[in-house]
């Protein structure tokens, strides 16, 4: 479910947050879907369980996940629908940042970049 890189500069909990939000927003994690338990995920990726727990708690606070007694965490039922545009924009924010950075480094102008994005958008719709 998650692709975690413990050695990146991005803390593990942050990686989980970003990926979870993206998965829910894109519908790959439907409301009611069960997430792996903290222990399971920690063992699978060989990372500290507390960091998983921290991510889950933050997602719960956001309203993305809900805790069920005795059962693993599930995606909150109103997670998808209630996600406003701003939240969904937030998901792709890191990608946008990366693209802008790359463009700047390669000295691609803003206009050129927008043109490229538009072309990609139109191609995707075919």
């Amino acid at each position, binding site marked *: 479910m998650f692709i975690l890189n*413990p*050695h*990146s*500069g*991005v*803390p*593990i*909990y*942050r990686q989980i947050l970003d990926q979870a939000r993206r998965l829910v927003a894109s519908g790959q994690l439907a409301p009611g879907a069960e997430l792996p338990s*903290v*222990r399971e995920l*920690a*063992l699978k*990726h*060989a*990372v*500290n*369980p*507390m*960091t998983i*727990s*921290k991510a889950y708690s933050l997602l719960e606070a956001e309203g993305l996940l809900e805790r069920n007694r005795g059962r693993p965490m599930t995606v909150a039922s109103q997670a998808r629908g209630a996600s406003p545009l701003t939240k969904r924009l937030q998901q792709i924010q890191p990608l946008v940042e990366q693209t802008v*950075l790359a463009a*700047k480094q390669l000295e691609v102008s803003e206009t050129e970049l927008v043109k490229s994005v538009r072309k990609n958008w139109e191609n995707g719709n075919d």
Partner: protein
Amino acid sequence: MIESAVQATHLSKSFGAKQVIDDLSFQVAPGDVIGVLGKNGAGKTTLLELMLGFTPPSGGGVQIFGHPSVALPGDVKVRVGFVPQQDELLEQLSVADQLRVIASFYPQWDSGLIQRLCNEWGVDPRARIRNMSVGERQKLSILLAFGHKPDLLVLDEPVASLDPIARRQFLEQLVDASAGGDRAIIFSSHIVSDIERLANRIWILKGGRLDWQGDLDSLKESIVRLHVRGDAGAIASVAVPGALSLRREGNFATVMVRDWTPERQRELEARASLSIDVEALGLEEIFLELHR
């Protein structure tokens, strides 16, 4: 009130004129997994042995579950597991006998767990310790510390001689051990990637002092590499307070900063006509930069 597993106040240790540990204060709560990093000679082993009472402090004190380290009662000692840097195995015994000897000291020894781990880790109970390789000995030393399910587990370079497969197995076992959230684990290692996976708090020992003492996540968010771009004049005069290092090259500058926050970025960008890209670093990079 949650009793802290380890609590140190102004802990110091010197050997003759040499000050190895200088005024450390810290607290370890159950559920913490603390990775101790430091150069060779920084005092990691001394610190761990100080904590457990193998050596008396020269100044200040350290308590384990509320008791001073040099006077730990029996019921506290059974809650502690220690893997020393130099193993304490008895050469003439077999693995099974060595396990039996140590098990006899602990009423809560879990032989089922040990048997399972022996199988998983490939430790032959009939092997004679005298004939075992360094890696096998290290695995045995680790097992000896796990068997009694201690509430405080202290490991000094436990995986220095293990191959990556064995290391991963060990990590998984530690993850399992810490999953309950009521065990405290402190381990020192040169293998930064292991610490990066497992620790939630990092101690960086430098010159006998704790250069960093806090969450791993905060560490990664706080020590960053800035790639600064601007016109030559702005670059020449750029100054970042609290920078660890600064390199300039024409229109570019690379700055290592600690205690970085987004506010500082906005501030810096506003002050001079600079554009700043922030690069987050892995733990090994951070460690290297702090020691440059």
